[in-house]
């Protein structure tokens, strides 16, 4: 599943930090494609380099994890980092010496299976022998790697592919001396023919930093790569699970997400717990005054080796405190170039910045998005397209809510009642906004209440 969309092509100079906010811990694939030039192309004295750091973790400067202009000579290289990351914020830093052209940046959450299959579909640009696709496995062990490669015999110079695992060339001794270092050699194929070949290497490597390099000569295609026997570093509960603390005076760990379910353990304010699964749908509890709470979501947690459910409002997950959420909203509003006080005002009035809020009308999360809007947010043809597969994901909900808000805000660009109309449209749809002046008395109480709350900067909450 793609968590962060392709960040697009651009020139990188100096240092650039890409901030990731991940909702779940697990194994991630970070894809970075870039091109760097050599000094001849630059007509200078130094080659371009692009170096990557993940959460401050450096890779050796002469390792395959670095884009080197002297080898690439302006051709595209793709590096896939496979790494275990905890939920929360992470930083991928790009250090461009002389500059680099970033072609693509993507991150995907991978399954926890020991076999990892990836469709790659990367065709090399036409050029001479150079690094082409690199896999960097961080703190992982694996038994074997299988790749499917298509290569062709061409006039004059054919496609060749070399595979290097941890610096060791995986040659083919059954081929000619000229080709034995290149596992796939197009010149050995019949004239004008192509072949797709699957090949498995079984290096059986123990846990550590590993590099699997595919070098290309001319234009072969890497169709897929799979790793078997993949084992991530043994994660303890301490590392694997997000941390949280009980913020209610008392709370209960229950066998099911409902108040009447079997009591597993009583909890008290300040108790530290591990989050196993967030936002599980359950019963909406009521307080002692018979007032229903503002959510029907429970978290599955581990407390002193006991697993169970605790009501979401009784827990604060690390990194999900109001200050942090507020900063995320302001940051996203700035990124999408919309008034951050309007975005923050909407979120405060909608949810008081509690990310697991569910109204009885079915609106969910920080920006109280209904399922009806989610259908549109997932429609690529919509101008406010912002995919949502989990409305309780803080990142998804903020990006989607602000994207939609920005679209509405732009609809009323030159209108004197721009803010009021944007809020009405946010609550009831642009079809509810008149062309001329707004007559507030014609709206239902709930629409009026949202306008008053946002314009009052949420003071009534």
């Amino acid at each position, binding site marked *: 599943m793609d968590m962060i969309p392709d960040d697009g092509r651009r020139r990188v100079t100096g240092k650039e930090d890409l901030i990731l906010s991940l909702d779940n811990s697990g194994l991630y694939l970070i894809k970075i494609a870039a091109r760097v030039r050599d000094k001849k192309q630059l007509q200078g004295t130094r080659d371009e380099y692009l170096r990557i750091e993940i959460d401050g973790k450096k890779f050796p400067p002469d390792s395959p994890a670095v884009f080197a202009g002297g080898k690439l000579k302006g051709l595209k290289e793709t590096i896939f980092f496979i790494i275990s990351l905890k939920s929360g914020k992470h930083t991928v830093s790009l250090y461009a010496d002389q500059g680099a052209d970033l072609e693509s940046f993507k991150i995907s959450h991978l399954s926890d299976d020991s076999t990892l299959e990836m469709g790659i579909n990367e065709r090399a640009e036409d050029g001479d022998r150079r690094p082409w696709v690199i896999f960097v496995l961080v703190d992982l062990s694996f038994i074997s790697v299988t790749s499917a490669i298509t290569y062709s015999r061409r006039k004059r110079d054919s496609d060749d592919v070399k595979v290097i695992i941890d610096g060791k060339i995986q040659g083919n001794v059954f081929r000619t001396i000229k080709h034995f270092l290149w596992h796939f050699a197009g010149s050995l194929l019949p004239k004008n023919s192509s072949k797709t070949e699957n090949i498995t290497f079984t290096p059986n490597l123990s846990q550590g930093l590993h590099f699997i390099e595919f070098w290309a000569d001319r234009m072969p295609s890497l169709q897929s790569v799979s790793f078997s026997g993949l084992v991530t570093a043994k994660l303890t509960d301490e590392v694997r699970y997000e941390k949280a603390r009980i913020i209610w005076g008392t709370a209960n760990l229950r066998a099911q997400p409902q108040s009447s379910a079997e009591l597993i353990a009583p909890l008290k304010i300040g108790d530290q717990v591990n989050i196993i699964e967030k936002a599980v749908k359950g019963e909406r509890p*009521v*307080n002692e*005054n*018979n*007032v*229903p*709470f*503002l959510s029907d979501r429970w978290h599955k947690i581990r407390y002193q080796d006991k697993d169970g459910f605790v009501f979401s409002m009784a827990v604060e997950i690390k990194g999900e405190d109001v200050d942090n959420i507020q900063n995320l909203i302001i940051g996203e509003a700035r990124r999408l170039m919309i008034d951050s006080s309007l975005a923050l005002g909407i979120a*405060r*009035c*909608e*949810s*008081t910045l509690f990310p697991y*809020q569910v*109204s*009885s*009308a*079915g*609106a969910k999360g920080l*920006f*109280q*998005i*209904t399922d*009806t*809007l989610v*259908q*549109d947010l997932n*429609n690529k*043809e*919509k101008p406010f397209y912002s995919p949502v597969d989990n409305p309780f994901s803080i990142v998804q909900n903020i990006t989607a*809510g602000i994207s*939609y808000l920005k679209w509405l805000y732009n609809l009323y660009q030159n209108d004197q009642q721009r803010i009021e109309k944007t809020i*009405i*449209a*946010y*609550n*009831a*749809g*642009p*079809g*509810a906004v008149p062309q001329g002046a707004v007559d507030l008395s014609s709206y*239902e*109480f*709930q*629409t*009026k*209440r*949202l306008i008053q*709350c946002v314009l009052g900067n949420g003071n009534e*909450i």
Partner: protein
Amino acid sequence: MKFNKLFLVILLLAMIIFGFRARVFPILQRPSIKGVAVQQVAVELNKTNNSVEFRDQAGILIASFLIKRLVLDKYFPITEKEQKWDSIRTDFVIRGDDSFFFPITRSTYCGANNCTWGLYVYQLTGKLDILEKNIFGNIQQISLSPDKRKIAVLSYAHGGYCSNGSYLYLLDRISKKNIKINSLNLKNYSQSQVEDLSWEGDTGIRAKVLNSNCSGQEKDGVNREVKCRVIFDSDQADCKET
């Protein structure tokens, strides 16, 4: 003459045996539903065939019509030229004896919190009609009166943190009169939740409502039972707490 009579009898028997009856006497084939029991039925927009389809629990097609027929007036303007039905939303349908009742909206009529819905009725005869154009919020329940002439639509409108209202729309299919009941919401309470809604006869409706403010506030939630007598002819609903 005798031959003709015999021929007619044989023809009639053949029609019955070979299933012509359904076409000749469609009225005999109509399903009958006792009381206001609602059949499990789904409504789908088939964007390949550009049709609205009603399917039973097993997924078997019961009835369908072209999406463009939803353009009954300018309320939900969809041009046939657009042929983009992605903006149309429906997720709710109930079936009466001879009709399907279903709300429709478009993206334009929805915000992040609420939509404005039109309630449509499609009769098995092929007639399509719109009963109400201004149902605000998120539809929770549609219920037919015992005589199946009136329809109650319950909707929740959301207005941000700790604010939602319950609205009841009562519609008369024959006279086309509509009555909107706001009295499920109590002044000084920011939330209302209907926990049970039922018809009492053909002119009465009963609702169990919980009115409350935000959790943690000192005022208790209040459970109420509201009974409304609906007088469609005078566009009135007389609602009392019981």
